[in-house]
């Protein structure tokens, strides 16, 4: 029996294993290897250097705090927007709304970052509009604010997607039942809609936070030198040939995103379990 007859799957998967799985695993292994390289075979010297440097902690804090705020604003805007999309009935309006909302997702982050420069620069659109009202000019970019607003723009569609799919699954009967039993709109929102859409909220947090913590181009261009995040530092260290430090920072960043994903998944399972027993 030839290989093709005995295990055809082997032929089918070998290209993807050779071209994707192996390089992917090898490159992660190399990052780990460089992160733990020292004078002996294995060393924690670079980790010690990284952890004892207060600058590292400042950068980690900047990264997490920025990602947390981006996530918060994406949810704050994304939740009502997902409801509004869900309520749109006319196919034309739906088509336009979806296209406007999701097309930027497929535009290069460079293009979008440049768009924000045009909007936020000292002579830009926002400042000139504010100027008519006799305000400003304000410094809106090359700082934390610029990075934040541009990142919310980049991440918002990712928040709307899971929210929309959980809102689409809401049973109208449940909401009607709550209303019939005398719940006011706030109660309906907090005690019926919110718990039922919680899985969507959790996956929105998961996606947006992971993407925001690992974003490089947007905070780098809009934040300038004032917003130093881990991805930015990794890039800079490779430029200055400090691969070991870049590897340690890469593993820290990877650790943060994996930890966030893992704990949100656990949280999601916990809530599902509670919901089932209640």
């Amino acid at each position, binding site marked *: 029996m030839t290989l093709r007859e005995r295990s*055809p*799957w082997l*032929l*089918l*998967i070998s*290209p*993807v294993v050779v*071209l*994707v799985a192996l*390089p*992917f*695993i090898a*490159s*992660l292994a*190399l*990052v780990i290897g460089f992160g733990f390289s020292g004078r002996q075979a294995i060393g924690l010297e670079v980790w010690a250097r990284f952890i004892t440097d207060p600058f590292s902690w400042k950068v980690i804090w900047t990264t997490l705090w920025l990602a947390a705020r981006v996530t918060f604003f994406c949810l704050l*805007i994304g939740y*009502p*927007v997902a*409801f*509004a999309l869900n*309520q*749109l009935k006319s196919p034309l309006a739906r*088509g336009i709304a*979806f296209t*406007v909302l*999701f097309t*930027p997702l*497929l*535009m*290069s*982050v*460079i*293009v*979008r*970052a*440049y*768009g*924000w420069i*045009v909007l936020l*620069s000292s*002579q*830009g*659109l926002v400042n*000139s509009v504010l100027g008519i009202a006799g305000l400003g000019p304000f410094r809106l970019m090359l700082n934390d604010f610029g990075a934040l607003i541009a990142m919310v*723009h980049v991440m*918002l569609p990712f928040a709307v*997607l899971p929210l929309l*799919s959980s809102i689409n699954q809401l049973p109208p009967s449940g909401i009607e039942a709550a209303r019939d039993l005398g719940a006011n709109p706030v109660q309906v929102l907090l005690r019926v809609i919110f718990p039922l859409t919680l899985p969507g909220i959790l996956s929105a947090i998961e996606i947006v936070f992971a993407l925001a913590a690992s974003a*490089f*181009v947007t905070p780098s261009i809009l934040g300038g030198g004032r917003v130093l995040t881990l*991805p930015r530092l*990794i*890039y800079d260290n490779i430029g200055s040939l400090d*691969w070991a430090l*870049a590897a340690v920072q*890469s593993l820290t*960043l*990877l650790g943060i*995103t994996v930890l966030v994903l893992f704990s949100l998944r656990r949280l999601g399972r916990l809530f599902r379990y509670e919901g089932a027993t209640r």
Partner: protein
Amino acid sequence: MKRTILNIILGATLVFMAAPIIVVIINAFNVSAYNAWPPPGLTLAWFQKALANQGFITGLWRSLAVAILATLVIVMIGIPAAYAISRFRFRGREVLRSVLLAPLVVPRVVLGFGLFILFVTTRSQLFGTLPGIALAHVILVVPFVVIIFLAALEDVDPKLEEAARDLGAGPVRAFFLVTLPQMRVALLSASFFCFITSFDEVETTLFVVQPAVKTLPVALYHYLEFQQDPTIAAVSSLMIAVTFVFILLGLFLTNGQFWKKIFANS
């Protein structure tokens, strides 16, 4: 009342989403080199400047070549892999599935750095070459593509394949005549998605390019670090046009299912 408030929020959000894209296009005609708004006058000079910039022109051709290569490769390796995962039970099947979905979790910067070390330390001749860049993009889009293909294969009834086999078709022939045509929409959506993602990618690409071999987005990024004049706007407008054409083409060829295919499953 409630609906009105929601619609106002939606409208404001749509303005917020569209604004940066629209101002880029208008700014491409702005006379002011410092992006002064409203534009004091209109000009086509930035387009001339962009088209005279060798870095952008060669970058454009490279980006197109990389995107085409990455798309061809992902289709040729992604479909058989998804087919094997969906139709065969073998040891390591779950592991393979997880590995193919794993690039979703890895930050693009980390993946770029890892591939950079891999390309350089193994002397694989891939560093800074078009196949190397395409390989990086293939790894980036593999999770999306596998998810799309797996979902499409779920929808194809294996009984139809069996019927074709019973009628005397070989496994390969049965796949091409029965299964593949039913995956048409998924195949198109995945291809367009891969093409657009590859064409626009910067964050991973930055790590695997050489100064002499830059793709268009990387050339733009390096330009933007030093200058922010509307030349960028002119090039960006062209990129927006390319992306938009592909989205429209995708919508048209998939009977409007493009967004659904790409995002509904992921």
